[in-house]
């Protein structure tokens, strides 16, 4: 079971700054284990960030995004107390959704 994300959403001027850390191996499929077997690729493929029901960022990723991914961006229209909800889906079709309140 995937661990919760760590999401920060803060109002900076008229923008909401979102910083998120995700717990994920982001295995490339290029590495080998001690026995020389290829470790299969396993990585987050899609990310969606919602403010209310509006998409404020969506992404598609390959395995070159670093382990335990980090993303930071800003959007307009957020207010203190609003929710920011983030969902990821990985190459095993595992998914995780977490949310944070804009501070």
């Amino acid at each position, binding site marked *: *079971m*995937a661990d*919760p994300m760590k999401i920060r959403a803060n109002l900076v001027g008229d*923008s909401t700054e979102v910083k998120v850390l995700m717990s994920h191996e*982001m295995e*490339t499929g*290029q590495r080998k284990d001690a026995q020389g077997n290829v470790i299969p690729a396993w990585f987050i*493929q*899609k990310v*969606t960030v*919602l403010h209310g029901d*509006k*998409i*404020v*960022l*969506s*992404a*598609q*990723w*390959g*395995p*070159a*995004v*670093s*382990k335990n*991914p*980090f*993303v*930071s*961006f*800003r*959007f*307009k*229209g957020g207010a203190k107390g609003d929710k920011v*909800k983030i*969902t990821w*889906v990985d*190459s095993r*079709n*595992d*998914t*995780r*959704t*977490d*949310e944070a309140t804009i501070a």
Partner: protein
Amino acid sequence: MNTNRRHALKAGGALSLATLVAAAGWARPSEAAPADAWNKSAFETHSLDETMKALGGNAPLPSNDIAFLSTPDIAENGAVVPVGIASKIPQTEAIAILIEKNPNMLAAVFDIPPGTDPALSTRIKMAQTSNVYALVKAGGRYFVTSKEIKVTLGGCGG
């Protein structure tokens, strides 16, 4: 409330990520694949031309209106290379990061809806010293800028 649902797409939960990603602009998959699919072919390319083809775009124009922010010229470790990209091109719809010498060139594509600043930071892996491209889609056209990031060996292990 936090959820952690396996097979969320098949289960068709209240929040369907499939719908959301499909609604977003760019990472358009090939004709045959369903509209919400991860664009597999775009993440298996080895040149800028190939990547552009897989993304359904044409040759990008070099642009001075794309900037790398907080992106060092030298990475102390290739496993985590901070990359920030900001576009000043009007109607920026998407920003992608490509690493020339990685086994697969495309690292990430971000769709930027109206109201979201066309600027973001993330962290990528680099197999070796390489050019890194910041690709921007704006008003249906493609623009690019690049910089070299050196990956250094470090620590006692050499």
